């Protein structure tokens, strides 16, 4: 209790509050601009957090995350372009509602659903994280290896059109992660004579490259300005207050969606993007008026937005508890935040609760506060966001590229990492041209080295026997779950795709 009060005092001190408001605002702004994502918002700010104490840096990053995920709602509702992948399905109903002349109501409903979803997942975060942290201590090399297998199974199970391409992307990511010193013997591999590569590709520049370069380039190519319906008049305040209390009307829908969002977020490698799609599919399946979906259904907006915001909290659980190893991130943003932990010399994991419980509580409180700030800002600034949407791409693109260069350099003080950014940017571009999913590549890249390390360590411990993978209960359970999950997720994502195909356009 005392820890909680101290944490609240920490978060409510003026500097930290200012950072949270600023973080949510910046996140919303970037999320609202099509093609810019929460990942990018966090990636840009991480180098800036160097100079801050961790008690300030992480509330800032968490607020960026919350803001970035919710920001996609604005462009989704107003111009029908999902600002972030996590609001793909939000477009269907929000934009229809806007076209029906109720843009304020569309924004308000989405924001309210985001708010309630985020708060619910904050509660889940607080109650679930400590027991999960204790449980995580029981994970040894066998359990971790199985867990990585489960992660890989999840990631490839949800990759759109072609499963084979997903597997290939995963393998390519795994291979790229193995460049540099091997994690057991320190033997250098595949460095092509560059000593800068002996630690492998730096993760953050690679991640930023994969996602931003391709987005910037395709944005710059499109070139044209988005058309905006800002001309219409609407009373933002009235709509926002009204919609805040619409949610209880759909209590059960909301509950189902939130639980699903948190659960999806907790599974490594999925995160809010898929949560948005799956929750929407689920909301439609259980809706009273499924025929209204895609035509401005309130249920649709709630399902999609509550889902993705609930997943943000869920995705933080594995990060903070390290249940899922030395950091299996729940999605791309948490992958970046994980990197930030390392930069600040904080080892995420079960030990975090013991050595830094104060710090963890601060993050919880900040997450809670950030969600409320997010709603207030949506209310106050929707009109500013609409302005930001009209910044011409030809100015935006070079600015973003420059920030990427600075960010890549500042992360490890090496010009070499700017080249890593470029290389992975080109890989990302190629993947988009060839319609190959990026997520498996990313997960392979991030987790490959740990997977290899744990697997080989496991075999050293067992003196070469594979049997413990199947005799240790947690490991066995994980392997069984991966198999079942692959089957289930494959069917579910096929259904989600069908829903998408039916409702879209």
């Amino acid at each position, binding site marked *: 209790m005392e820890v909680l009060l101290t944490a609240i005092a920490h978060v409510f001190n003026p500097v930290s509050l200012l950072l949270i408001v600023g973080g949510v605002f910046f996140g919303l702004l970037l999320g609202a601009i099509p093609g810019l994502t929460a990942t990018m918002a966090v990636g840009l700010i991480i*180098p*800036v957090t*160097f*100079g801050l104490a961790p008690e300030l840096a992480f509330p800032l990053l968490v607020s960026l995350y919350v803001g970035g995920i919710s920001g996609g709602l604005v462009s989704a509702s107003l111009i029908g372009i999902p600002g972030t992948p996590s609001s793909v399905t939000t477009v269907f109903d929000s934009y229809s509602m806007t076209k029906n002349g109720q843009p304020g109501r569309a924004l308000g409903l989405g924001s309210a659903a985001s708010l309630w979803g985020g708060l619910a997942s904050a509660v889940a975060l607080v109650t679930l994280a400590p027991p999960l942290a204790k449980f995580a201590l029981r994970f040894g090399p066998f359990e971790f290896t199985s867990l990585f297998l489960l992660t890989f199974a999840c990631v490839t199970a949800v990759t759109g*059109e*072609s499963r*084979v*391409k997903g*597997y*290939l992307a995963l*393998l*390519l990511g*795994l*291979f790229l992660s*193995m460049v540099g010193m*091997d994690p*057991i*013997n320190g*033997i250098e*591999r*595949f460095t092509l004579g560059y000593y800068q590569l002996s630690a492998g590709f730096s993760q953050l520049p690679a991640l930023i490259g994969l996602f931003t370069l391709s987005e910037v*380039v395709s944005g*710059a*190519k499109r*070139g044209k300005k988005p058309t905006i319906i800002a001309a219409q008049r609407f009373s933002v305040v009235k709509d926002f207050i009204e919609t805040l209390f619409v949610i209880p009307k759909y209590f059960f829908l909301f509950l189902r969606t939130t639980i699903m969002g948190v659960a999806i977020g907790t599974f490594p490698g999925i995160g809010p993007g898929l949560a948005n799609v799956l929750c929407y599919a689920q909301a439609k399946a259980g809706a009273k008026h499924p025929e209204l979906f895609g035509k401005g259904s309130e249920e649709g907006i709630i399902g999609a937005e509550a889902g993705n915001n609930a997943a943000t909290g869920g995705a933080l659980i594995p990060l903070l508890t390290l249940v899922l190893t030395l950091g299996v991130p729940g999605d791309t943003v948490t992958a970046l935040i994980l990197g930030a932990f390392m930069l600040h010399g904080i080892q995420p994991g079960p030990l975090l609760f013991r050595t830094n419980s104060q710090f963890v509580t601060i993050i919880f409180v900040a997450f809670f506060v950030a969600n409320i700030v997010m709603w207030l800002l949506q209310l106050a600034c929707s009109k500013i966001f609409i302005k930001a949407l009209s910044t*011409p*791409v*030809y*100015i935006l*693109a*070079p*600015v973003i*590229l*420059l*920030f990427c*260069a*600075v960010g890549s*350099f*500042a992360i490890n*003080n090496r*010009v070499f990492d*700017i*080249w890593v950014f*470029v290389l992975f940017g080109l890989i990302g571009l190629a993947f988009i*041209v*060839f*319609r*190959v999913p990026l997520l498996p590549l990313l997960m392979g890249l991030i987790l490959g080295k740990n997977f*290899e390390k744990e*697997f*080989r360590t496991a*075999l*050293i411990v067992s003196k*070469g026997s594979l049997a413990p993978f199947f005799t240790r209960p947690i490991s066995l359970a994980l392997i069984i779950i991966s198999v079942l999950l692959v089957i289930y997720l494959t069917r579910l994502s096929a259904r989600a795709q069908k829903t998408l195909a039916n409702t879209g356009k």
Partner: protein
Amino acid sequence: MEARKRQKAVLDLIFGLACVVVGCLAFYASSNVRTSAFERLGAGFIPKIVSGGMVVLGLWLSIASARSVDRKAIGMISFDIKGNLPVIAVLLLFAALAATLETVGFRIGAFAFVALSVWILGGFGRRELLQGIVVGGILTLMVYYGLKELLRLMLP
């Protein structure tokens, strides 16, 4: 829909073949990795499995997609070089920025990059050039001195 499918087949074929090539190279590199005395598997073991998997799946993808590839499908793949020229130019500029960062320094490099890119992407207008210079100048100074003074982070 049919056209999209055909197009996809060609793309899949190219991607599959690329994976086979990369996989072969990776497998060759993996089999030359030194092993050590105190561990059975060695540093080349998992890379070998991974690159082997890439070759097998790459072949599978190529064969599966090759069936629906014909001359007409190949003809559908075109690359709009002219429309992409500004973007390519900006990417080259970015590479130039990275290459010269340590000799020219951040302030000049970043300023020139932003100003030129805005100008190129904006369609070479006078107004765009001015915008680029203003945005580039303000941004460069903000980033450089912001990082240096506030965070003691040195940029070259």
